[in-house]
């Protein structure tokens, strides 16, 4: 009987195009949109050589140290500047046209002309500050002892990089991957549409189909579990395709622990399906209201988990709303994926999965309590 109900339910659910769209096509489309709009955002943060001009006047030509410093900083693969020599007027025009971030007029001190404050303008200023400061340091040392002229210039050429990147314990701090994790978490919770259908179609006072199933000589729990297994199988398959699409087509990194990523997705899918079953069992209203509750809870959960605005998770949820942090399945799921990607240990991951499992067991138990032994005097 299990196989009979399971197989028929599978066909039923696969023909439900609306549910298939929201649980499968919509997350896929959203992942693609995320990728198209976010894949370039990281480059906004990355350092790019700064387009800068210097006024090629007699001061610049005669001041060999300044010219050398600027040319050195504009040479090689790890250069700071893309340098253009220009007249004052040309430099101003380049600035007005947005082709350079600023232009330099050599002098003592050198002058920087910009039309806005920003990180790149600040880096140019830092460079000029450094030049002025080094010049001042040389003056100070030579004032003290003019005989060590050669030593001073030898020492100047001996600049070092004093800061080294510490070896990272896990993934790179690339926060764009987190948006995809929240999307997978949301898609897991969209499994609730399947769960809702299962719980609806087993309660005889809600649909005629459920009334028919209830008079069949099959134990209610057996019928419910068989059809829920079919729902789970479909949703899990959808999630695996989504995961594969995000990992292999969009090339989003999940860290080295693929097995745990799959485990998290399976638990997420079960949570989603039983969340839908729970809502459907508890709320005795129309299907529209149930769908409204499912979408509302999932979207608020996703929003709090940082799907639309990442600070929402870090600043608001993690630091100020610990209760919602631990009871929001979307947050627990996306945080679990984040831990697998970013941390080298599994402590926080285990806590997330523990909390999520508790929530899932609670949904299962409550659904069972609401559905079991319900008899209908009249329908």
């Amino acid at each position, binding site marked *: 009987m299990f196989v009979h109900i399971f197989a028929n339910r599978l066909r039923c659910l696969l023909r439900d195009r609306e549910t298939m769209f929201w649980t499968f096509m919509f997350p896929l*489309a959203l992942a693609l949109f995320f990728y*198209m709009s976010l*894949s370039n955002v990281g480059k906004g943060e990355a*350092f790019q050589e700064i387009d800068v001009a210097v006024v090629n006047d007699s001061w610049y030509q005669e001041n060999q140290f300044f010219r050398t410093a600027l040319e050195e900083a504009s040479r090689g693969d790890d250069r700071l500047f893309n340098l253009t020599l220009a007249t004052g007027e040309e430099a101003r025009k380049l600035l007005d046209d947005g082709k350079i971030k600023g232009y330099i007029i050599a002098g003592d*001190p050198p002058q920087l002309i910009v039309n806005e404050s920003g990180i790149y303008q600040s880096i140019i200023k830092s460079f000029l500050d450094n030049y*002025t400061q080094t010049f001042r340091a040389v003056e100070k040392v030579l004032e003290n002892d003019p005989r060590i002229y050669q030593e001073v210039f030898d020492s100047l050429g001996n600049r070092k990089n004093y800061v080294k990147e510490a070896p990272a314990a896990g993934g790179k701090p690339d926060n764009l991957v987190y948006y995809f994790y929240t999307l997978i978490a949301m898609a897991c919770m969209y499994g609730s549409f399947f769960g809702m259908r299962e719980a609806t179609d087993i309660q005889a006072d809600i649909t005629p189909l459920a009334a028919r199933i209830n008079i069949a000589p099959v134990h209610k729990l057996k019928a419910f579990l068989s059809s829920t297994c079919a729902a789970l199988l479909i949703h899990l398959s959808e999630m695996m395709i989504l995961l594969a699409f995000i990992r292999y087509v969009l090339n989003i990194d999940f860290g080295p622990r693929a097995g745990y990523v799959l485990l998290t997705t399976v638990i997420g899918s079960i949570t989603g399906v039983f969340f839908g079953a729970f809502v459907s069992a508890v709320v005795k209203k129309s299907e529209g209201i149930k769908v409204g509750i499912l979408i509302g809870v999932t979207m608020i959960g996703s929003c709090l988990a940082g799907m639309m605005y990442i*600070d929402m998770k870090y600043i608001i949820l993690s630091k100020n709303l610990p209760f919602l942090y631990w009871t929001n399945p979307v947050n627990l799921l996306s945080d679990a994926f984040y831990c697998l990607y970013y941390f080298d240990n599994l402590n926080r991951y285990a806590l997330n999965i523990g909390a999520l499992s508790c929530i899932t067991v609670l949904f299962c138990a409550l659904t069972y309590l609401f559905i079991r032994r319900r008899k209908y005097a009249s329908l």
Partner: protein
Amino acid sequence: MQVYKLCLKIIKKNIPVMLIYIFIYLSVSIVVTLSSSRQNNTGNDFTDTKANIAFISGEETPLIEGLRKELGRQANFINLPDKKEAQQDALFFREVVYILRIPEGFTQKFMAGEEVHLEKNSVPDSAKAAYIDLAVDQYLNTARFFLSTMGDVTQESLVKYLDDVLSQEADVKLMPAPAKTDVYGLVFSYNYMAYSLSSILVLGMAAIMAAFNNRDLRNRVSCSPVRETAANLQIFLASLTFAGVAWLTQIAFCFFFDIENVLTMNTVYLLLNSLVFTVCGTAMGFLIGSVVKGNEAISAVTNVVVLGSCFISGVFVPAQLLGETTLRIASFTPTYWFVKANNQAAQLTQFDLSSVRLVLSDTAVIVCFALAFFALSLVIRKVRRFS
């Protein structure tokens, strides 16, 4: 005017769903307005950018104290808990972009001329990390320069020298920009309209069209004493009323969020764009309603079409951060031209014909889209009628 009234009834039935989009618009606009008002308004003076960093020192010496003081010009110091996980979290979610760790015994080794390094965790290859690197290296290289050229120097006198030398700054002059550069924050409330307004328009129009696509209803209207032309005219008028009310509501919210610029010429062009875009959204709704059957399918198509075009056209993410390929694909949607026209209208400082020509040409592209959607839906309806 029965047909007209029927259309309005259908719209009224869909108001709760439309309110969701208004709610989303309001929530997002409030968040964006609040976060953009938090950003520094630099006025007429140049201000150094400050990066958020964590400064974790294993020792307290005059040299390290001097470094901290010097970095204060380029950095805001953020206190993080002394837990590796919390520090990693802060870097990932950009509470800080740089964590600088000074190992115990650094000063002693540095003063002795030994090879020593500081450790950092930073957002890889970021401009802000390069900025802080530059400052730390300058401080320590200058210190090393004094140590190697001045012989026996105590830590206190070294810090004094550094303090004196590093207070030297280049002269920076801030020129007035010919165009406003923070376009995203400036026209966000207008650009975001592309999501909320087009969702509302498509949902409403598609709901009307879907109702009239019902065969029984169509037959009933056909056998009524109302002429087909009159019925169509009433549908057109109802659509116009609906689109007009939706546009006015949306504009009222835009004015609310951009109150200080309401009386500028830029707003006139933004209004013109939004009006043309409203016509285009209505035509798109007309097309979707003509093609798609069933309310569930309408909601699915609306979400994918509207959400998708907003994602790739610069509504949710500023257009300058989108890839070239993405923008090229986006140029096949009216949303792209709407956002482009808005961004250009917001940057206008002169309003002669040559300056506004770029805005108007983008607006003209939106008109072409509207005509194409409308023509296509008429063709589809005609083909369906004869099939």
